[in-house]
């Protein structure tokens, strides 16, 4: 974390032959992107952040030594305010989601009225790694896309060291609009690096990313083209909604589906309605290639490059819109697999948070809206609450179970105003968050999953454990991409 921070650009010839990159600490990195050093998550923290966080840590320690009780009261008050703000913000988002219905909707009539010859060229990226098992399903899903084949390019982005998938892809009789791009072996070995590589090769005017296990709405590409036209120039990304095709596989997939329903049906649409930064969903993000190039593609060092890109584009004055079209994915059905996927997501959120807090002024430079605050709540607050939740739950349970012994001691950390705010956040906050899952399921027509929202507290607990592991991983292996296994539903 505190090592040598200087990077040396690669020689021009090397860039020409291998792609854009640099050398850091003797290690060569080829990330195929023009992003500047301050825009990538190579370093966990900037130097200023290290100084700031160290100073904060020292101040808290000193305060605890000098007056531990008051220090804890201040910390509790700060956390409570954060929870309370988050409670109000989420309530507002859900309200907006219902009252505005901000999703872009493309009607069948609009689709039929569009002149056939005017559909632009489209490139579909599909980064694959050790995913030969789902290749067949993906080819079938892509073949079902309702888009002129002469204007379509499906690009399979395969890793050089994944010979099994390369062989499987080459052995398949792929339609002529499929291309195979083998990404040369280099560090970091991540999905965004593969996509940056693909971006250089893509021929399409529009670009979308699908994961190998995705089954998109066959009309999604056409809808995206028309949605871009409706949304205006400032909208550089259209996010399709994600849902699962195996929600009933087991208990985990049911709760996972409920979570996705909440995120895509209510939270993202609420965020869109206020033009807030939207952490993108990893797949089914549609772009105009020119815009994507202007944004310099993805951060190859960020393990949630989608979330990072969603924030970056807002900082540059652009917006993301959610479109009424669904891509079906595979819900993670294995608890261990889910845990490591979640760990990676949370680690990526940490990377994204610290990366964009290096220059917080950029949030207000280009837009008048208070995106700095929404970023704090959507990305920072979301992660922080995962760390703190277990502590608050233990305090609550301790308070009620051992009230006669611990009651006055715990109460002493909560001055009246803070106590009421904390009680409101605890009671209404937890209830409302659980309730949002129910509404999300209802809105998504997963009526049979509504009852599983009662299991969400256990899910939150698992997320908190994943958050702490993610923190450890953030320190020891920030760029390691913990690959999620797909195709478990096929077994």
């Amino acid at each position, binding site marked *: 974390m505190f090592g040598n921070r200087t990077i040396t650009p690669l020689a021009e010839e090397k860039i020409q032959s291998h792609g854009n990159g640099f050398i850091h600490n003797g290690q060569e990195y080829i990330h195929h992107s023009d992003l500047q050093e301050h825009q990538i998550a190579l370093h966990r923290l900037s130097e200023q952040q290290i100084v700031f966080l160290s100073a904060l840590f020292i101040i808290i320690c000193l305060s605890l030594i000098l007056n531990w009780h008051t220090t804890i009261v201040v910390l509790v008050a700060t956390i409570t305010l954060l929870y309370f703000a988050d409670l109000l913000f989420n309530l507002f988002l859900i309200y907006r989601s*219902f009252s505005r219905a901000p999703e872009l909707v493309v009607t069948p009539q609009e689709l039929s009225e569009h002149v056939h010859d005017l559909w632009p060229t489209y490139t579909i990226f599909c980064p694959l790694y050790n995913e030969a098992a789902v290749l067949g399903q993906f080819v079938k899903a892509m073949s079902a896309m309702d888009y002129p084949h002469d204007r379509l390019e499906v690009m399979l982005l395969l890793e050089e060291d994944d010979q099994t998938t390369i062989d499987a892809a080459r052995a398949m009789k792929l339609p002529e609009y499929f291309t195979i791009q083998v990404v040369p072996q280099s560090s970091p070995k991540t999905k965004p690096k593969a996509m940056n590589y693909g971006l250089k090769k893509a021929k399409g005017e529009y670009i979308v990313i699908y994961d190998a296990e995705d089954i998109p709405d066959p009309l999604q590409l056409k809808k995206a083209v028309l949605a871009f036209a409706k949304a205006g120039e400032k909208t550089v990304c259209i996010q399709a909604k994600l849902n699962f095709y195996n929600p009933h596989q087991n208990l985990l997939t049911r709760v996972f589906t409920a979570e996705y329903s909440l995120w895509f049906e209510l939270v993202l649409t609420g965020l869109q309605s206020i033009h807030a930064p939207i952490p993108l969903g990893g797949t089914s993000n549609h772009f105009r290639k020119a815009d994507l190039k202007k944004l310099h593609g993805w951060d190859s060092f960020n393990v949630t490059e989608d979330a990072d890109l969603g924030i970056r584009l807002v900082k540059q004055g652009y917006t993301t819109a959610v479109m009424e079209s669904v891509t079906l994915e595979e819900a993670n059905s294995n608890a261990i697999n889910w845990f490591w996927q979640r760990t990676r997501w949370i680690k990526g959120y940490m990377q994204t948070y610290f990366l964009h807090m290096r220059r917080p002024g950029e949030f207000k430079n280009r837009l008048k809206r208070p995106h700095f605050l929404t970023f704090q709540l959507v990305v920072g607050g979301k992660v922080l609450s995962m760390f703190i939740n277990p502590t608050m739950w233990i305090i609550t349970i301790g308070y009620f179970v051992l009230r006669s012994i611990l009651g006055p001691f715990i109460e002493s950390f909560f001055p009246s105003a803070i106590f009421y705010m904390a009680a409101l956040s605890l009671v209404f906050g937890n209830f409302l968050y659980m309730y949002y899952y*129910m509404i999300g*399921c*209802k809105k998504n027509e997963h*009526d*049979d999953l509504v*009852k599983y929202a009662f299991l969400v507290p256990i899910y939150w607990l698992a997320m908190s454990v994943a958050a702490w592991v993610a923190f450890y991983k953030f320190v020891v292996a920030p760029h390691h991409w913990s690959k999620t296994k797909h195709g478990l539903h096929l077994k």
Partner: protein
Amino acid sequence: MKNNIEKFKENFSFFAIFFLVFLSILCFLYFFSHGLTVVFGDSKGHMNISRRVIDSPTPGLAQLGAYWLPLAHLLTLSLVWQKYLWISGIAGTWFNLIGYIFTTIYLYLLTKRITDSKICGIACSLVFALNPNILFLQSTPMTEMLFIATTVIGSYYFFEWSLSKKITKLIKAAFFIMLASLTRYEGWALAVFTTGYIFLELIFAKGREKTKREADLITFSAVAWFGIILWILWGWLLVGDPLDFMRNDLSAKSQTHLYYEDIKATGDGNMWLALTTNILAVYHTAGPVVAIFLIAGVLLHLLKEYKHLLEPSTYIWFLLMMPFVFDILTVFSGNVPVEVPELSRQPPPGSMFNVRYSLFVLPFVVVLLAINFRNKFLTLIVGAIIIVSYFFMIFPNPQNIAVLNEAGASGTPVGVKNTINWFVNSYDDGYVLASTGAMDGLMFDAKMPLKNYITEGAYKLWPPALKDPKKVVKWILLDEGNKRDAVNKHIDKRKLHHDFYVVYKSGTFTIWKIKAQ
């Protein structure tokens, strides 16, 4: 001329709301200027409960207590910090004015939807809006108007949901029914009825619809019952008894037993008397036409729908009747008495008690008016007759309305006013030990800071003050003739006589002051 009519139609909503706001404020000003805003003993209790949250020897939300439901007190809290708004009752009335306006609007929307006629909607909603007892209740810091408002709005969305099955309607219905359940216990009957209704729809549903109704049941119940569960938990947390609201000394049942002593309240244990008492109460608060129409309307509706008695669509209309049914049952079970002059066995003869609860049935009558006549003309005629009958309630004397009379009966007698004056003039300093069960009205009328009083709610100070008063208080208010006086019930009289002496006496009421050291 035609242009003007068109303009009026275009701006109807504006004129209608303006009229309602004007009427609401005008009536409030009338009752306020006649000193009739805070006349109910209970209204003083409501004002004091809110005020104690910020003005008490032990301030905090615990002062809301665990007996009276909290929503009205929480709303009152927004203004009660200002002394004038507390003493005048305005802090506890403002939301009733808003509630009155919204109830009328939602009744209009509901009946317009049923009859598909704007004019019928107007006539039906005016049956509610012009009732003199309603206009009085909306001008007082009581909980009834807020309850009617939350009930009507919740019911409106529930009707809407029953037709459209839209999730947003269901959530809104659940939310307002939750608010109703946090305003009055009658709201709990609404929660039971509506949940039962969705459950029945679930039973009748088939295939995918069954799954949808199951999801609706969970989504609805989670919110509609949230307030009730919270309230029970609150009681458990605050006083260690989740059912404290049913069992404590201030509960309706305890108060009824204290008040009636050995005799039974009218209708206690007798369903026929409980029913007739409540219908007679409707007669007093809404007039004979409404009382007759209530009975005839229910029978007519059941006769019309007798072939579909098992179908949810038949009895969804009875949703708005639930608070009234609840009150009949509470009279029957002896929990809450209602007395009407025709049947009352409790002295003084001819007095009324709790007749205001009968007004809960008025929105139901309004809906009956809309659903029972296929002929809009009949709806208009019956509506007009009811509205005309209201004028006979207020003429020749505008103050001759039933709920106002009931409120007057529980108002402050002249003797007590003299006592209050004496106390206010003589009080110097120190804590005053007093029971809210017996002295809340006096404490309100005295207009002194409530932090001077140690009452049942001063949880840290109350037990030591009763055990050894001289160590904690300087004054004690006692009414040996009042069984609700917890100080009289629990204090050690020997210590009292040893350390305090009587400085004022009026009947069984005494004021004690600590002896000089």
